């Protein structure tokens, strides 16, 4: 028996070597119903040690439910929750050792800052000396030493949040869960706190899961982002991956602005009405004649008055400026693809950068674009001007297919 156990151990440790950093927390095949409504469908993801994962989704996407299931405040219908390799699905919230920072912070109103922070240790019946020491350390970590005797109602939103974080750190949580941590704050405080929390997490090195509907927040806070849509994970990856190679149209449009045009796959290019763009076509994912969607970020678009575009830009099409407007840091242009624009683009000079605000599915619909100030000053564009568009990078998605079915990216 002992031998078997030892060889088992070997097997396990060998396996563990193959799997890079062991997950601090895993959600495995979790689904959930409220009544007869399915809110989560077979959700799975891992959070690595020291990692910050952001669950990004619109309200009603089920992201809060995931958080509550991990915390033990909600039971999953199927699936399980693992924390540091231990199955905690059946454990009540209080035995999971998870730290939750609630949206409203949920500080205990009748306790001072000190008492709030020490609460986790008091109910664990720790020695008074130990509690005092830990509280002292945490107060200085979150820089609230001079507010220790205050009650939560006497603190600002940001200070309350720091108390809430310190209160969870007191009992060495296995993982921190943040529920819309900046929802209740104004825009300026939000940006400042975002940075503060990121620095704090680096310092304490506790894995964290954030929930937000704010894409900017997700990009800044997350080591990885999981985009949730109606109870499904549409894509999970680093901010750069998710932003640059969106796996689905939803991801592309939810995370930043995107142009979406419909076209058809040809041998070594994609055709859009009168325009075509050269692309390496992955024959495993696409077949000739297949309808596709071309998705490109605003900043991946180069504009030129002549047909010349810098090398590396796939030539795309001609367009007509429909409208220009000044939006502070940049200029926004609304363009319409020019059916008579022709396709022959050579390499050329100054590129201009485009942003679209709304997804467009047809070439006949306008593309809304922006370009930075220096370009605006150098080359004035007016309504009716004819320009040429090139793309630095774009993503092809099969039309009418569900998420993840296949992506093709050309850089």
């Amino acid at each position, binding site marked *: 028996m002992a031998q078997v156990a030892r060889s088992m151990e070997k097997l396990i440790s060998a396996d563990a070597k193959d799997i890079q950093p062991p997950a601090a927390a895993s959600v495995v095949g979790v689904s959930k119903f409220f009544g007869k409504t399915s809110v989560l469908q077979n959700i799975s993801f891992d959070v690595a040690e020291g990692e910050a994962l952001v669950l990004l989704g619109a309200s009603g996407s089920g992201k809060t439910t995931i958080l509550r299931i991990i915390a033990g405040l909600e039971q999953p219908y199927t699936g399980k929750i693992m924390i540091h390799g231990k199955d905690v699905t059946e454990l009540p919230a209080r035995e999971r050792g998870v730290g939750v920072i*609630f949206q409203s912070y*949920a500080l205990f109103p009748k306790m001072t800052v000190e008492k709030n922070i020490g609460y986790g240790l008091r109910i664990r019946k720790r020695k008074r000396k130990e509690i005092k020491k830990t509280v002292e350390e945490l107060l200085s970590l979150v820089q609230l030493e001079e507010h220790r005797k205050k009650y939560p109602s006497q603190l600002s939103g940001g200070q309350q949040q720091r108390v809430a974080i310190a209160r969870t750190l007191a009992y060495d949580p296995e993982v921190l869960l943040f529920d819309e941590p900046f929802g209740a704050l104004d825009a300026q405080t939000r940006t400042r706190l975002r940075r503060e929390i990121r620095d704090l997490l680096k310092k304490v090195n506790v894995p964290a899961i954030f929930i937000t509907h704010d894409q900017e927040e997700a990009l800044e806070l997350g080591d990885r982002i999981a985009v949730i849509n109606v109870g499904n994970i549409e894509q999970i990856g680093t901010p750069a991956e998710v932003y640059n190679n969106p796996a689905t149209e939803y991801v592309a449009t939810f995370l930043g602005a995107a142009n979406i045009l419909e076209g058809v796959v040809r041998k070594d290019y994609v055709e859009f009405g009168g325009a075509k763009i050269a692309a390496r076509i992955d024959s495993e994912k696409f077949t000739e004649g297949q309808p596709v969607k071309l998705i490109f970020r605003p900043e991946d678009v180069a504009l030129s008055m002549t047909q010349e575009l810098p090398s590396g830009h796939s030539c795309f099409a001609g367009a007509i400026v429909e409208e220009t407007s000044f939006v502070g840091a940049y200029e926004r242009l609304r363009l319409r693809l020019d059916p008579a624009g022709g396709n022959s683009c050579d390499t050329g000079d100054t590129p201009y950068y485009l942003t679209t605000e709304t997804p467009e599915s047809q070439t006949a619909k306008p593309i809304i674009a922006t370009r930075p100030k220096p370009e605006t000053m150098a080359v004035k564009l007016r309504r009716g001007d004819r320009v040429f568009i090139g793309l630095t990078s774009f993503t092809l998605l099969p039309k009418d297919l569900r998420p993840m079915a296949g992506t093709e990216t050309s850089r």
Partner: protein
Amino acid sequence: MSSMIPTMRHVRGFDVARPLSIGMLVLMMLPLVFLPLASIFLFGTSQGLTSFMESLTAPEAVFALKLSMVTSFWATLFNVIFGLFAAYVLSRYNFWGRNALIVTISLPTAIPTAVAGFALLLLWGPYGTLGRFLAPHGIQTMFTAGAIILANIFVTFPLAFGVIKPVFDTMSRSLEEASATIGATRVQTFWHVTLPSLRGAIVSGALLTFARAVGEFGSTILVSGNLAGRTQTAPLYIFAKFNEGQIEAANAIAIVLALFSFLIFSVLFFARDWLDVD
């Protein structure tokens, strides 16, 4: 600088409605509230302080006051604990018949106190629905101090509950959830998080219940038997002495009860801030 201010002030015509309406309000309250209260004190002390003290320290009077306090205390204790429990259950769980229960708990305030006392007699009395089985075993609930407590519980039943329940309802669920995720058991959460938030409601609920119980008459006179020195509460004593023509004796106790309720309502009114926040 100060001489500038009057010239900058807006001068408006004298508003007649203001003193007139205030005066009218006071005038209306005079015969309805102020004068009856004042007459208790005027009458009670008209024969001099010594005779007032004599009436007050008469053994039967002292007993009646004590009995009122003791029975009210137990009724209050029971109703606060019950109200807390009922409020917890009814605001935390949703179940079939929940609203019916809420209405039932609140019902006793709407029932005339004499009817309440009568109902208790019909249940616990020697020939009552339950009492008839207890009587052969020598268990007599009616016409005892216990009966007074039962009557007090019945008529003050919804008071504490009514004060505590709204606080429960508005209390953020996330406080208790936060406590749970931090690692507290339900009991710890209730003790450290829920109860402190309810402190104000519990104190004011208790004061209301106590004040109401001390003054209870209608149901008490039916269930207690009104035996002087045995089951006679302070309000019953006032009534009895009045009937015997001993106005002074009745008056002495009336003053005590009036002062007592003043005290409770002052606490409720002036300690509101303390009751709500720290």
